[in-house]
């Protein structure tokens, strides 16, 4: 086996400060980065917020069951016309015109009488699911193609880079706008509404993945181009190590830092992209999302501010926390920033 850069870097950085009575231990760059992260207060706070919101999303059904609130018009057990003012569409109880109402902590949506909190939680769930899935898949594609392109030289590299450029040049919003009606008309059959919303969900993830793997692919390729001329790689090649093994055992560990950084920064981008697409009506039918809620609430912003601000603030806090966390992760993984 070749000596990987990771191991080379295992210089006893923290050795001098090692507490008494403990063995001197080598730490990998990842461990160093994690330690730095733990010391970063902002990062810890942001991590806490993200974990809280993720838990809210994951346990949305449980919370809604406990509070006896329902996220969609189809599931609410009461008749909207009985709890809403028929002439204004506003709830007869709770915000905005009446005080806090424990049964519906964030009030009811005008016109449909759906509970705002339930919709928010389920929207969070959808947004996080879409963002996570899109991040995982786009990272996988970007990393694999980047590795192959960077290492293979010649025609393979050229083909992959051509494809990358091709996708980069394709307008994202236009593609998304064009896909939505095609999907609807293809799956628009009576009695298949469940299928349609599933297809819409996964095609939304698909669209996000297809249009976002390219920057990571380029980044990885650039890294690989410089790494593959290093001695440990050449040594491995001389010893006849299979290419697959060189790619994943020699090169990949050296790319952990850029991948982690790219991933942590793309998560919030996907959350906003999903909200934006839902707002444009390219989203999902039948499943609540944050973007849809914001779209519905925009015409009520003056009469019923809470209806709009709840999802807007949630998405802002989520994206801000993810972004700051991503920044901290980048700082922690970057050997050039020593604090």
């Amino acid at each position, binding site marked *: 086996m070749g000596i990987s850069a990771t191991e080379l870097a295992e210089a006893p950085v923290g050795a001098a400060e090692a507490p008494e009575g403990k063995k001197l231990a080598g730490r990998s760059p990842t461990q160093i980065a994690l330690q730095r992260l733990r010391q970063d207060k902002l990062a810890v706070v942001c991590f806490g917020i993200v974990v809280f919101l993720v838990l809210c999303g994951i346990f949305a059904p449980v919370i809604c069951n406990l509070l006896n609130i329902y996220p*969609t*018009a*189809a599931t*609410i057990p009461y*008749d*909207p*016309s009985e709890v*809403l*003012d*028929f*002439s*204004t*569409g*506003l709830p007869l109880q709770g915000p*905005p*015109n009446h005080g806090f109402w424990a049964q519906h902590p964030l009030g009811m949506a*005008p*016109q*449909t009488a759906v509970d705002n909190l339930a919709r928010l939680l389920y929207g969070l769930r959808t947004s996080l699911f879409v963002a996570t899935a899109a991040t995982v898949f786009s990272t996988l594609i970007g990393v694999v193609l980047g590795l192959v392109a960077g290492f293979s030289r010649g025609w393979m590299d050229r083909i992959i880079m051509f494809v990358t450029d091709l996708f980069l040049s394709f307008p994202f919003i236009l593609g998304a*706008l064009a896909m*939505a*009606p095609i999907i*609807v*008309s293809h*799956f*628009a*059959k*009576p*009695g298949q*509404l469940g299928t*349609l919303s599933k297809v*819409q969900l996964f095609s939304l993830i698909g669209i996000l993945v297809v249009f976002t793997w390219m920057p990571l692919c380029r980044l990885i390729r650039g890294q690989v181009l410089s790494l593959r001329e290093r001695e440990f790689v050449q040594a491995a090649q001389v010893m006849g190590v299979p290419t697959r093994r060189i790619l994943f055992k020699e090169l990949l560990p050296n790319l952990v830092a850029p991948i982690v950084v790219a991933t942590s920064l793309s998560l919030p981008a996907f959350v906003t992209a999903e909200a934006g697409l839902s*707002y*444009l*009506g*390219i989203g999902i*039918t039948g499943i609540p999302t944050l973007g*849809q809620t914001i*779209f*519905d609430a*925009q*015409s*009520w*912003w*003056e*009469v*019923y501010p809470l209806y709009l601000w709840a999802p807007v603030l949630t998405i802002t806090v989520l994206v801000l926390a993810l972004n700051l966390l991503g920044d901290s992760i980048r700082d922690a993984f970057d050997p050039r920033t020593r604090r």
Partner: protein
Amino acid sequence: MRFKSPLIAISAVGVLALSACGGSGSSSGTAGNETQNNNELGNTGNGQDPTAKGPVTIAGAKKGGIVTVLTLTGLTTTLDPSEIYYTDTSSIMSGLVTRSLTQYKYDPKTKQMILVPDLATDLGTHNDNYTQWKFTIRSGVKWGENGQPITAKDVAFGMVRCMDSTTFPTGACPYYSNAYFKGGSSYKGMYTDPGSKFKGIKVSGDTITINMAKPFPDMPYWGTFPANGPVPSDKKVSDPKTYKKHPWSTGPYMIKSFNQSKELVLEKNPYWDPATDPARTQYPDGYDFKLQQQSEKIDQIMLADTGTGQTTLTYDDLLAPDFTQMKQKAPDRLTLGGSPCTYYWAPDNRKITNKKVREALSWAYPYKNVILAGGLIPNVNAIPATNLMPPGLPGRTPYNVTGRQGFDTDPAKAKALLKSANATGYEIKFLFRTDDPVSVKGKDAIVKGLTEAGFKATPVPTTTANYVAARDNTTEDINVRSAGWCSDWPSGSTWLPTLFGSTNPDKTHSFGTNYTAFSNKGVDAQMDAIQKMPLEKQADAWNALDKQIATKYFPLFTTYYTGVAQAHGSKIMGDNDDNTLGMPTWKDIWVNQ
């Protein structure tokens, strides 16, 4: 007449950037409407004034200014006068650009539209049994585009031109000109069959004589349609492929530029002579229609009333929350009134053959929840409906076949009806638009209501762009269609033959305007008989037939009648509701500078 075309998919590019002055936080006022009589929605101008003469002057009105008009619709339906049959294009063109035989004039005292002459010197003269009409075309009217005088021949050319139902398939002429004019039913049209000549219309000097195949007492009303106006007989100018982009002007304004879905700009027609026109005026310097604007944006501009917003008007209804605000803030800038339209759910009578199932559907439909979800304003633009024909139509007596009151829903009754029809769990398939939040919300409400009433609700997804095509597709896998219809003029003859005249969708692959696919030879014969009755007996006969159809067949159920809740800036004067179309009274508008 078809209700103005449904909204076209709009990519919402703008963010919430428009600010309005902070309105009061609470809004618990009711949205009742004092200025509108909901019992007179369809009473749209029985008044006539054959002697009305130009020029029209409005006391205190000032010249100048540009009127900006904002709307969600894109004027994507044709502007060719021969084919116009939507309320928005019809109102704009006949109010400002194209003249026809007769026209409507707003009467501020009664808030009604009065039928007055336009290009004709009077409302026409007829023989005893209304089978021959004569119109004398006034002199001194010129084309805006070249200043040449308009002759009776140009008018007759326009009237014959529209009778080509192959070239102008969505127009109104097949229902009236082709149906009533002598030889009209067999006439193919000047473009489809260039060799044939239409003999029903004769011109001598400045007089046009129309011979009818059957009595047509409503000819002066039909004369208000842009289809019964002049079109240049120069084949190059009036080519149907290009004329719709720039129809020639005869009214006070002419088209400066027209960009479908974007903008329509009108400028003054220098050759228009006010002395020849008994209703139109030419106070503003021009009109600027900005098309496919977001509803939220329009409402905010109207509420803010600053800058050019003061000289802006919209013919879209305000959204419910904005209507409440406008009512508190500036009730004088609201334009309220009726429109002679009925919305209804049309079960496909070919598929839902059991009358009891259709009745059960009318009990199950969640009227209130659909209206709430749609952001409509109860008693302003959503009024409880019973008869197919809206209130105010001559001879109308309210009937109530099922005994359902107002917007009431009764799932238990629907269940009982379904059970007695042995059709519990009957599957109702209806369309909704996945990319239109209002449609999705309405769908949710309907599914919930129908399920509670023992139906099996199956919403069928489509997109806004494909919606009309899917609804009009006779073989689409749905069994209920949602539709709306407006009077062409206050008469049952514009309702029953158009909505219940026999069709054979399986063969012709088109519903025409009969979305229920209701076909009954006996009813056809009765309608034919009514059209041949003496005029004074017709109104009652139409209403009796309306009731009879509902009692005996119940082919459809009405969901609500509608009105307008439009707004205008503080410097726009004379913007009232033209209740024949539910559109602004363009002819009286001026800018107070």
